[in-house]
């Protein structure tokens, strides 16, 4: 699906994203601050932000 001719993925960005998401998840496991839909929204937000940023 990630056809290289159309979409280019930045591995650095992915690495950052992974770290960010795991930390988010870890914190939430402890605090139970956000429920599942909220977490999905937060992850999406993080992805969009990371992709859009320079």
């Amino acid at each position: 699906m990630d056809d290289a001719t159309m979409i280019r993925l930045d591995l650095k960005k992915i690495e950052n994203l992974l770290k960010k998401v795991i930390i988010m998840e870890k914190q939430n496991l402890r605090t139970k601050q956000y429920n599942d839909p909220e977490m999905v929204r937060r992850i999406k937000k993080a992805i969009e932000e990371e992709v859009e940023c320079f």
Partner: protein
Amino acid sequence: MLLKTLKLINFRQFSGEQNIEFATDSVKNVTVVMGENGSGKTTLAQAFTWCLYGDTDFEDKVVANRALERKLMPGGELQVKVELNLVHSGTEYTVIREQLYRKDLTGRTKGQNTTFNIAYKKDGQQEFVRALEVDAYMKQILPKELSRYFFFDGERIGNMSKEIKKGKSQDFAQAVRGLLGLNAFISALEHLKPTSKYGVIGSYNESYDSKSDKRIAQYTEDIQMAQDNIERIDKRLLEITSEMEIAQDNCDDLNVKLSGMAETERLQKDKLRLSETLTKTRQARASSMSAILKQFNTNNSSYFAKSLIFKSLENLSQESKLDKGIPDMHARTIEFLIKRGFCVCGTKVEFGKETYNNLNKALEYLPPQSIGTSINQFVIESELKTKSSSDLFESIADQYKVLRDYENQIEQLISDILAIEKIVEGKKGIGNLQQDLWRYEKVIRDLTAERDESNRKKGAHETTRDRLITERAELTLRDENNKKIEIYKAYAQYMFDELSRVYKKNEEETRRKLERYVNEIFKSIYEGGMSINVDERYNIQVIVEDEGGYSNDVETSTAQSISVIFAFISGIIKMARENSLELESETKLLESEPYPLVMDAPLSAFDRRRIKTVCDALPKIAEQVIIFIKDTDGELAEENMGAKVGKRYLFEKKNEFETKLVAR
């Protein structure tokens, strides 16, 4: 999770309010609760289960104190409550379960549904978890599937060992993984999951702008349909797996029984063979008997008369009776001489004179009056009898020996047959096992076929889905907005794949590490060339380490079972503890939580030497140990764990319905 306090109100024999505070100190982390059998150890252990999950292992599901319940007036109410205070993930929780019992006007007491609440402290304020979320919270704190390994009942060890060895649910593996610090990965994967509409990737799929091209919506719908099919098949595949496992278990059971049956069958055949031999031997004995009797019946009198014949002949041969007969002379000769009036020698034969008398006497010795002939006859007969007689005794004795042999054989055969019957008797009543086995084997065949077919269909759906996704991507990339979504989704997908990979690797490592720990602990408490294997589903196998490298899953003995369970639990706890120490490390993405070990009468199953090992190992492995013990075991525990014991309690049993918990 560490347990701080437990409050019981009218829970079974604990009438009124009773409190127990557990040792949470990092050094003195052991709480010992001592009491005689029947004083309430098991009840106290069950109080945890009831509080956390609303269920007990008691046959009688009524948890209200019986004495108080009896005293209730019609319309009266009795509140039962168990409150458990614990710390989990740095948050202090109070888990409360209550049940109201009401006596109706007919005097029957009925328990209402239990109520379950979890309270936690947030910024010093006590807050209650919303009713809809309490179960999810509980699952986070300690899933029920795992609880039994931390609330450990020494007396139900047999079942546990079977459970731990196989047939555990996916939930269990999931729970273990969570416990081992892979929770963040699991949550992240769950949130990213492409197969759910509500996950990150799924929601991107839903957010395409279909205004630019109507077909996008159609594609999305088709893709979703394919995805739904795949999920339905996946669900069925899981069911198939567990159905197959159940059928396989049944087959295994039946095969064990059938091999018992095969044994029985073999014995039955032996018995039949022995019975046939018995019949033949009996026939042989009968004919041998007939032979003896036939011999006895034939001419027996000459045999029995032998001594008499001998004596008679002896006597007869000594007498010279036979000599008195004049050879070749007949009575008629004498009669002629008397009639003629003079003898051969010329002497006159006159009636009454000597010559007359002598001649008459001679008649006695001549035929027919002579007994000489009779005697001769008798001797000839004796001779004939002797010549024709066999030694009756000798032949009967020979025959009798044969007969005795037969009788011994018969006796042996009968005792063999009886022995077989005894064994077979013990194996009766297993019924139509073979049919059952065939039935289960057919179930497995059918399920296998269904699984293969399902996998084929799943593959087809996946191909369709992937094709549709590609086609949709072509469309969406033409639109700027949709292209963005496509890119986000690509990132999300990549993240998901990457996380899955890392998770798998981590999980594998974690599992190997668990296996190593479990083995270390197992070998320290159970000697004898055996090791434990933990497979992908966290099933446990005990393997014999043979010099030849030959290995086999062996039937476990009770002591071995206990050791396996103990090693498994200890291993999990040890890892959980280790992971929790690395909690703050940024590079290590694992997160975990210490767990207590609550054990009901665990020592009674071990021998003295092993008790020491266990007592040594326990407080080192678990963050917290709470142990319910009978007096005799208690002394041993104190002896071996004394320095670690932080709190001591004693059950004071007043009667069947009332036990008090006293601090010592």
